[in-house]
């Protein structure tokens, strides 16, 4: 898998670590992680990611709000987002896709197949866009 630059926002440090191992070791991606939406908004410009990987339920700022604010940053209006959620309700999945999510991954996720899932969704999006 490629050199995708992924900005990962997740408030649970353990899940963050597992995702890091999965995405870097197995997926070979370039990953930058933040524990909150605020931090992500600060770091986004310096990191300039190809993709946002966002947890939905976070205490300060929920994932969907973070995404809307990230999109408002210069150069990121077309950066795609993949959401991870523990709420497996189909109405929420529909709402997130409407918001522009290219994929919604249900927790608990499988760290062995996570990189593949992300790459597949990103490729499909890129092909469609080009």
């Amino acid at each position, binding site marked *: 898998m490629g050199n995708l630059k992924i900005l990962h926002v997740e408030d*649970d440090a*353990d*899940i963050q670590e*597992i*995702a890091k*191992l*999965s995405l870097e*070791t*197995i997926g070979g991606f370039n990953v930058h992680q933040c524990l909150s939406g605020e931090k992500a908004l600060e770091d986004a410009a310096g990191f300039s990611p190809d993709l946002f990987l966002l947890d939905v*339920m976070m205490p300060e700022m929920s994932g969907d709000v973070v995404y809307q604010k990230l999109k408002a940053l210069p150069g990121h209006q077309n950066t795609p987002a993949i959401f991870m959620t*523990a*709420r*497996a*309700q*189909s*109405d929420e999945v*529909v709402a997130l896709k409407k918001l522009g999510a290219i994929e919604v991954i249900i*927790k*608990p*996720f*499988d*760290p*062995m197949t996570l990189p593949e899932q992300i790459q597949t969704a990103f490729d499909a999006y890129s092909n469609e866009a080009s």
Partner: protein
Amino acid sequence: MNKFFILVNKLVTIRIPVKLQYVIAMLIAVIASPMVVYAVQGKTSIDSSILSPILITGLTIAYAWGIWIIRSAARTDMTPAQETAYQIEALNAHSIVTMADAHGDLIFVNEKFLKTTGYDRSDLIGKSKSMLYPDSERLLFKEIQNIIQSGNSWEGEMQVKSKDGTNVWTHTTIVPQLDNRKNVIGSISIRTDITQSKITSADKYLRKSLHLLRDEVYMFDPITLQFIYLNEAAMKQCGWDETTYIDKILYDAHIEMDGPLPIDPSQFYEMVRPLTDGEVDEMAFELLFQGKLNEVKLQLVQTEGGKPHFVAMARDISERKAFEKIKDDFISTVSHELRTPVTSIKGALGLILSGATGTLDEKAKRMLDIAYRNTDRLTLIINDILDLEKIAAGRMDFNFEPVSMSDLVADAIAANESYADRYNVSVKTFGLDQELEGYCDGDRIFQVMNNLLSNAAKFSNAGDEVHVSLYETNTSVCVSVEDFGEGIPVHAQASIFNRFMQADSSDRRSKGGTGLGLSIVKALVESQGGSIGFTSQVGKGTKFSFDIPKTYSTATVIPVGGIRQAAE
């Protein structure tokens, strides 16, 4: 003289024996004679010698006059026999009368009794009067018998059984008939029908009770939609009283239902057609009523001989809804809180097991494998509980669309491959080459297939086949999943779709699962307008079959329970 006439008139209103009438006439004559003398003397100056013939003449006239007054006014010169007949006639006109002999057998019933109770005289004469007492008055009958036998009268309210089985409420006096030695030789019962006043007072009682209900009660005409009755709570809700609600119709009550109530009454008639057509006995709606969320139950009621009318009972459920939301949020939060650590555990174990963190010796790998499998189970349990909660609350959402059933079944079999491998089971398919479409939520039917396939694998013997068939009827697409395992014991078959049910409770541990699966499967299939059933033979296996409609069916918008409800 006026006072004298009043006295006479008063006397004649009393029944006076004939002999006494002559005495009174004499008295009148004696009292009247001096007046006659005075009158003659006052007007003329005649010699007193001629007074005595005048006096005698006066007395005679006065006597005759007195007789005439009394006779003409009273006219009561009946014989005692006539008078008794007259009294009986009056009694019969007013009262229900029966007479019984010493044994309590009926020997006389009057016309009014026959008219009131519908019996023929031949139904009653010679029969025990106990036949007139309804079963509910048995104790009272005995009590009255004792009182009469002891020579006393009884008076009170009691019911009398009519020929058609209905009861007539009466006010009754029963008097014993005694011989010279004071032995009871019979009884006479005199009754007044008070059923109507009983009904009126029961009606009042009912109305009062309705007024005290906390639920709002509205009754209205099914055609004009004009209100017939509102209880206190309803009047308070609408700001009306007894004098004003009578002019109002349903639309004056400011009801909102997904927006205002249909303006055109014909739309209202259409909405309540299942009631008026007799398809359902009751319809339930959730609607905004004066700005508050209410649950309204509507019935079309017709009493015997009355006009049909709608009865609506409304209850404010805004508090209950608020509580339900808190509960939903809680369950959602708990599930999220549970999933977060499970995500970490499962993720960490998965990475270790895959060798991403270095090689493992065989024993450690086996132990980690057990831990990993059990995090899967834990996830399934959390999902099952959430699903069941949503189904129970009627909040399971379905995205209906045409779904290729052959693709769906093939996908489900593929997704379940590792599970089938674990139990060393192979899946054989029949009819999957047909292009059959079902109108359903593909994800939910996938969930159903997943459950049936994993059950089939779990309960198969190692090396067995599982047969999956796809076929159709005129209106439905059908899928069956058959295993050749141990089968479901007969005693467990009736409750196999119940929550937490597994044929053998030890299965839960040995086979895994929560026992919630089949109850969820049944609810999922039925909520999509389909049905599910099974056949099973102990020692030979089990076959589950379900069907879903090919096209949109009205059943798919009716939640389980069959009553149409307004959207929240």
